[in-house]
């Protein structure tokens, strides 16, 4: 019997007690596979600070959207683990859905999160986005929204032209050489004058010059492309196995906590046997 906080027995296979967020998500997404359910539940508990990898920090509540891309279909992959009733993704064009998550085609495939930095009031100087990329291709934007001319942009490229690139409510960017584009990439802004990219929990660039915030775009953040004032550009062909949108909230997504955040996401991917 599946229920709030109750243990789940399936064919005599003992499972963890399920967090309410897990129950909501698997119910909405139609997920019944025990391995996937256990992986999602461990992810939720760890993100909430109630798990084996994290017993104190509540990454979960500081998030607007958490996309685990579990279930293998567009229907399952549209749901937001943070709240299954908000920021559901609409997929357009040629996106491939399978057990490894979502994959763009570099031509016209994308997912619209309907999260607008301006209209959904993400703080100007206290925000972050993340994606977990499984492939080492070299084009596109993995999560992004912008005003015309790449002004007031919020986006993250794990690897394009050999660089990881970000903008965070800014009209200037931060870029660092990136050899593979594989792993967990996190782009954060913690103040008005700097931007930072992390790869697998380690800072790869902290830009403190020409890094001022400008304004927030009303454009919704799109997966697998840049949404530039309603026009799709920079289509990605990467395979993504996780994405999130959050407020940094100083003590939560702090520099010191980034390795823990990576460990949680990497454990999730390992539980699903799709880690890189």
């Amino acid at each position: 019997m599946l229920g709030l906080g109750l243990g789940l027995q399936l064919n005599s296979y003992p499972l963890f007690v399920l967090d309410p967020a897990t129950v909501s998500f698997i119910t909405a997404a139609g997920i019944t596979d025990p391995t996937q359910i256990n992986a999602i539940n461990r992810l939720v508990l760890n993100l909430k600070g109630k798990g084996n990898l994290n017993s104190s920090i509540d990454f979960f509540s500081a998030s607007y959207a958490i996309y685990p891309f579990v279930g293998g279909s567009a229907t399952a992959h549209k749901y937001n683990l943070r709240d299954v009733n908000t920021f559901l993704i609409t997929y357009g064009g040629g996106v491939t859905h399978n057990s490894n998550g979502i994959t763009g085609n570099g031509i016209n495939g994308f997912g619209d999160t309907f999260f607008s930095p301006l209209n959904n009031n993400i703080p100007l100087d206290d925000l972050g986005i993340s994606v977990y990329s499984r492939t080492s291709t070299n084009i596109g934007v993995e999560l992004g929204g912008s005003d015309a001319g790449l002004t007031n942009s919020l986006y993250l490229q794990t690897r394009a032209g050999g660089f990881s690139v970000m903008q965070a409510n800014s009209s200037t960017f931060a870029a660092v050489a990136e050899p593979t584009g594989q792993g967990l990439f996190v782009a954060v802004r913690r103040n008005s004058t700097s931007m930072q990219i992390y790869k697998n929990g380690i800072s790869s660039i902290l830009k403190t010059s020409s890094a001022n915030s400008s304004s927030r775009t009303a454009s919704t953040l799109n997966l697998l492309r840049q949404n530039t004032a309603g026009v799709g550009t920079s289509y990605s062909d990467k395979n993504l196995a996780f994405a999130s949108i959050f407020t940094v909230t100083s003590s939560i997504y702090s520099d010191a906590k980034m390795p823990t955040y990576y460990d949680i996401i990497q454990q999730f991917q390992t539980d699903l046997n799709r880690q890189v």
Partner: protein
Amino acid sequence: MNNILVGLLTEIQKEQIQGKEFAKDSFFYVIKDANNNWVISIQEMEQATIPPYEWVHELPLIEYNPKPL
């Protein structure tokens, strides 16, 4: 991008499918290439299962020539 194939649509076909659901929770997104052709991806052509759009499986294929940025 070399040797990437896409499906070629007429103007009328483009009007028929743009924004329509071709598989559960997946929607056609027709774009123009550098020669102003209306095209969709191989993925959309292969994944289209919702009637009456199965005819996209038979679209003629052309090499994808992306619009310059």
